[in-house]
């Protein structure tokens, strides 16, 4: 969907991170889904690097 198509649509947001942003969006009646986010691979840097490499291969 191009940027100009986005401008014509109702905004629907997925929020990863600060919950306050989700609350602000809700207060403006924006449809928003909060992800119960945790760092991937337990947040371990070597595992993250490995995951990122795997992702690049996958793509």
């Amino acid at each position, binding site marked *: 969907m191009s*940027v100009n198509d986005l401008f014509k649509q109702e905004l*629907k*947001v997925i929020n990863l991170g600060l919950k306050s942003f989700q609350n602000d969006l809700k207060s403006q009646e924006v449809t928003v889904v909060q992800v119960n986010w945790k760092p991937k691979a337990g947040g371990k840097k070597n595992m993250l690097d490995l995951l990122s490499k795997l992702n690049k291969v996958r793509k």
Partner: protein
Amino acid sequence: MTLKTSIKRNAYYDSVTLMLLSRELQKLEGVEDVLVGMGTDLNLSLAKDLGLASSEFDTLTPNDLFIAAKMDESQITMKEIEDAFSDYLNKSSESEGDEEYQPPSLRSAIQALPGANLVLISVPGQYAAVEVEDALDAGLHVMLFSDNVSVEDELRLKQKAVEKGLLMMGPDCGTAIINGKPLCFANAVRRGKIGVVGASGTGTQEVTVQVHKLGEGLSQVIGTGGRDLKEQIGGLMMIQGFESLIADPETELIVLISKPPAPSVAEKIYQIAKTCPKPVVIDFIGGDKAAIEAVGAIPCISLEDAAQKAVRALRGQAYTDFTGFSLPEDEVDRIVENAVGLLKSDQTELRALFTGGTLADEAMKLLGNRHSIYSNIPLTPEMAIENLPDGRGHICLDLGEDQFTRGRPHPMIDPQTRTEFFRSHVDGRTGVILVDVVLGFGSYQDPAGAVAASVREIRQRLSAQGKDVIVIASVCGTDLDSQDLNRSIATLEAENILVMPSNAQAVRLTDRVLQGMKKGA
């Protein structure tokens, strides 16, 4: 005092929630110092610096929550601190209505929200790039609030976004308004015909607020992140945003805001501006006026000037550089004379304490070389705050910079940092205090009240020396913001704070008072 640590494994909470919780737990009787955080390297090093780390820290992962407290066990136990922690969390969850399903990953969220079109990402920077990539691969636009994302990742992700025709606003993008909906730190403004692409967060906020005050509105406000116009990124998102506003039938005039871009990037933007069928107003804060004029665009001398010219050009009215005040000149003269008359001869120094980085930068540029101003974001290296001779001289600080926000929220979210700087940096030699008060989504619920309280405290302290101090403020906000512009102004004026209608005018008044002080000396 005893040092105790409590650990909850695999319990993730966001950093702002935990920083605000640390502040609450700090207030408990018997707690000398406390830090609540996830077991990230940053938090572990902060805990060590604060003397709160224990041997148990060796087992922590970034998915583990810790509470580390120095406490008097005759007054409070770790169990009571843990209970207080849970209470605060539950209270905030109740007030936020947290009963909804929260999918565990971006992929499951995409399934849970059919038709999702934008992903807002504010997870710690080191984990952000992989999430952005997933979002772009799923064909979704991205606003990336997180900082600490590498330039290499930024370039790769923006190239992918451009390839797919998507927005990738950020990293470190604090402000956007898409389809009339403010995202992250943005003000409530009416919709209208002016589109903005901004690489400077509070700069963009100031322009949108001024446009609203002048009776016009915004079609779209696109953020790019502060590095977008550097050589390495090449202005990918500024150009993407600019072109989409050119194609947007709701946008009749376009405003571009950034610190001066790399010359090669500026050139690319000028070439688009040259053939743009819509009027283009460019504020490359302190940028090349002649080059902007040469391509038929409208250059500006301040953020307020950008808004004024945009509104006037939109309405087909003539415009000139706005260098003065909304108030009549004789009234400004009277204010300056009264202000200077209140000061003793040794009160010569400026303390500019900003929460908005672009506003601080604009202040220093407008004050120009008439005053030697030391800063943590200096205009030239020799004016770095470290070079301040004997701690004496004019100071302008961006309190939102990393060095002041380690382990604590940005001062727009939590006024505590500025409150402390009022206490530590204002003394009997201070003549003028200059502040910004930024309202809007994301910002603290009553920033004007926090400034007013600090000013009251400072004046009480100075009155013991038979002194007063001049305080000048501008409020970046609108009547539609939850903190309310007029209420905020009234709160400040009740403390005899001189409130000006824009950052530029607050800076100009500061300049006039400083010059008046020099003459009087």
